[in-house]
């Protein structure tokens, strides 16, 4: 019995050590980022793991190399517009697909879901040419437009609409509400948790997006924070002090959203897989 108890205790220790190490390794780069923001580049590349006194210097360097307010505003603008448009257009479609029947409905829907399989690498060249033809290179519209057509978010909304109470619609109809009124006045408020989860998926995708903005945003005044970090960081001898300031700036909004809406965040990540 004692040997069983010992073994049990030993395995409990192993479990905690394993989980502790996993948690520590997961958080460590965040710590490294914050500590790095206070150290000089030469200290960072020596692996100094204590807070330094160069925070102000790094911020100054970052601000002289980057028009930070503009870059941050570019990212914010793109993210807000893309998120609002995606949620609106995709929820309209998800709702529409579930509520309205037609001979073509399921065929169209399946066809639409097939586009989920298309890897972005196969789209980027024709999309780039298309945007060039529209004269949209170096505009934020070019970043937003392809994001708004999200088959995944439509799928997500259709799945969730299955739980939308039909009685509410019927009652609204009897009261003489038009279809669009039902959508905006009843569906949207009732489905707010679905919107919250979808908001997180889109927000994270757009705020963090890199490849497509890299292709269409070539002039400095249109660049986003992700693009700026990458161009500072992929230099042969990057100024890591300044880079750390950039990564902190880029991570704060997503961290904030994560801690403010943790439950919906996880829900959003899981999508409708459940």
């Amino acid at each position, binding site marked *: 019995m004692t040997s069983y108890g010992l073994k049990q205790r030993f*395995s409990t220790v192993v*479990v*905690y050590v*394993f*989980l502790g190490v*996993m*948690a520590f390794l*997961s958080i460590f*780069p*965040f710590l*490294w*980022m914050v500590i*790095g923001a206070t150290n000089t580049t030469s200290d*960072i*590349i*020596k*692996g100094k793991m204590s807070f330094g006194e160069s925070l102000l210097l790094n911020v100054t360097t970052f601000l002289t190399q980057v028009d930070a307010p503009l870059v941050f505003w570019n990212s914010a603008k793109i993210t807000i517009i893309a998120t609002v448009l995606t949620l609106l*257009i995709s929820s*309209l*479609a998800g709702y*529409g*697909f579930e*509520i*309205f029947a037609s001979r*073509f409905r399921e065929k*169209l829907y399946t066809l639409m879901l097939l*586009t989920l*399989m*298309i*890897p972005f*690498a*196969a789209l980027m*060249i*024709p*999309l780039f*040419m298309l945007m060039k033809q529209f004269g949209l290179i170096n505009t934020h519209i070019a970043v937003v437009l392809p994001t*708004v*057509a999200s088959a995944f978010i439509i799928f997500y909304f259709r799945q969730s609409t299955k739980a939308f109470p039909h009685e509410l*619609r019927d009652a609204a109809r009897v009261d003489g509400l038009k279809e*669009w009124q039902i*959508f905006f006045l009843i569906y949207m408020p009732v489905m707010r948790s679905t919107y919250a989860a979808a908001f997180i998926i889109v927000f994270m995708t757009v705020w*963090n997006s*890199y*490849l497509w903005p890299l292709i269409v945003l070539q002039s400095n005044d249109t660049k986003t924070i*992700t693009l700026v970090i*990458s161009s500072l960081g*992929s*230099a042969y001898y*990057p100024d890591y002090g300044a*880079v*750390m300031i*950039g*990564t902190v700036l*880029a991570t704060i909004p*997503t*961290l904030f959203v994560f801690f403010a809406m943790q439950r919906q965040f996880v829900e959003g*990540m*899981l999508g409708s*897989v*459940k």
Partner: protein
Amino acid sequence: MSAISQRRMRPRFDVNGWLFVGPALALIATFMVFPILHSLWMSFQTGLGVRLSFGGMKNIYRLFNDPLFFTALTNTFIFFLVQVPIMLTLALITASLLNNPDIKFRGLLRTAIFLPCVTSLVAYSVLFKSMFVANGLVNTILINLGIVDVGIPWMTDPFWCRTMIIIAITWRWTGYNMIFYLAAMQNIDRSVYEAARIDGVPTWARFLHLTVPMLKPVILFTTVTSTIGTLQLFDEVATITGGGSAGGAAGPGNSALTLSLYIYNLTFKFAPNYGYAATVSYVIVFLVAVLSFLQFFAARERKA
């Protein structure tokens, strides 16, 4: 429910229906369907820039004689064959340990392990790059722990460069996959575990013979999504190696050149060769299609 009330609740796809789904379908047609067909058409074109002419199978012929393409294909395969199993095993073990309600600080541990998911791919890549520099943090720690005598050449040796990228990707996505497993585990009846425990089935056997089979669908799902994700690997390799910028090779000996990075380089770095780049991109389309088909097939197999 009678057919009549069914019809009443589900009005026909009239003007209203089209107004609801129309905008989304128009956008998808313009920015997904049209480009993918255009890209198929382009894959039969040769020439530089916009001066393209019909080349038939020339691009396919070039593909099979292009050593850089095979480097990119091999690298991409190495990344997913090595990284995906390591990450998913780690995620599965972590999830099954965290699923035990007796564990203290469960919520805190789960949040911590999930946290890497909030970082942008570019931001974490830069962070990892700064930790793995020649005389940097990781090498200092390894030397101080006595694991190595001299620093590991993370940035200059093909093997170690790939290893570093694999470590980085694993850091970013393990917690993400763990969440899927945890969610699926919540649907497993705990009494099954209790019964097995009372019968004296050891922990590892419970994990292998109870947890894993019951999670098969979600394991399959994460395998396919991770593989598709790895097939499109771009942000990390471009940022860590600087392989997307002018003059930069994708790691020592192009050891981190992935298919997506190669397509990007063919289009935007070298003299733009849209036709050939489209051909390479269809290799990814093909691989993703095969994988998705396998997933569908495996899922059906399960139901039968």
